[in-house]
């Protein structure tokens, strides 16, 4: 392996960390130049490690969503299977979004970027699949439908809370009321 190849993953990580810092500071126009400068690398670095700026932004959003997923997993993995765990995972998801306003800002700013949109769509789908397994395990009718719908409702609540800049207890309560209603079908 050449020195350049060995350094590749580290440089990618440094570029993603730099993008995250820019996003956290509320920088609106993330560019190849601003990311490379933040990372202390030469201007051409981004293009050497990511196909396009669009792909970079997709990886950046994905990296932040990975952090969030790991947090949710850590908080819920040891809980017994059931609706209480689904609710806890939603709570954790919403809290994780609230303390990462840069995530929702990035996703909103780059809503029309096809790579970012695809990352967002895929992650929501994945979240729905996880809930599908949970619902199937406890015998909820139509677990796939329930998982998919609960996932988009959780995302919508996260967007509403981001717009409001605070928790929206009424919206969370409405979300959880639906969740528990699923058991009573």
């Amino acid at each position, binding site marked *: 392996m050449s020195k350049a190849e060995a350094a590749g993953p580290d440089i990618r990580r440094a570029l993603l960390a730099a993008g995250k810092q820019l996003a956290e500071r509320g920088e609106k126009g993330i560019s190849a130049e601003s990311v490379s400068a933040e990372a202390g690398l030469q201007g051409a670095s981004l293009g050497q490690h990511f196909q396009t700026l669009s792909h970079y932004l997709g990886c950046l959003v994905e990296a932040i969503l990975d952090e969030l997923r790991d947090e949710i997993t850590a908080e819920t993995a040891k809980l017994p299977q059931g609706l209480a765990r689904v609710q806890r995972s939603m709570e954790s998801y919403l809290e994780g979004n609230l303390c990462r306003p840069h995530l929702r800002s990035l996703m909103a700013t780059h*809503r*029309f970027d*096809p790579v970012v*949109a695809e990352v967002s769509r895929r992650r929501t789908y994945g979240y729905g699949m996880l809930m599908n397994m949970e619902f199937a395990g406890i015998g909820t*009718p*139509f677990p*796939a*439908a*329930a998982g*998919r*719908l609960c996932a*988009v*409702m959780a995302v*919508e*609540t996260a967007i*509403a809370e981001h717009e409001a800049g605070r928790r*929206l207890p*009424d*919206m969370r*309560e*409405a*979300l959880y*009321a*639906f969740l528990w*209603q*699923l058991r*009573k*079908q």
Partner: protein
Amino acid sequence: MTAQAVREGLIAAGYRAAVECRLAELTAERIAAAAGLDSREFPAHFGSLKEYLLALQQHFLDDLRGKIVVATMHSAPGAERIRAATMAFLDGCLAQRPLRSWLIELRATDPEVFDMLVKRNAVYTQLLRIEFESMRMPHAVESARLFFVMTQETALAEHDAGQVLADMRETMLVFLKVAA
């Protein structure tokens, strides 16, 4: 033929063209030909293809609203009217699947098309809120927003599947039982 009739002819041609071609293949010439017009007439009615597509989306949304009104006009406020409106919305979306393919693609890439949809969706959410309030649904404002996002997701799932998805419809309607 009046200008209004020509415009209507061009809009109707869009629905037919959506069956035959992808959005990327769409041109003003193709629409004009489908409407039986000389392509040089197109700009007199729609300044650009973009303007035409915005009008096409507006037409689809207005038509959908009309179907919902017909489906609910004799119902009293409440769960049954919401159910009827939701079914009319979903059936109306599925019935225009080819055109919806264009519109879904456009909304993902064009802020103006997206904004038009957001405005119309805000109206639906307000109407739902009023219905939920009449049912004494807890947190009517928030519930309306959540119910509408479920409706959109179900419409998208049915669009992808090309058929009614009874499981999705039944599951989303469970939401209405919260107020019961």
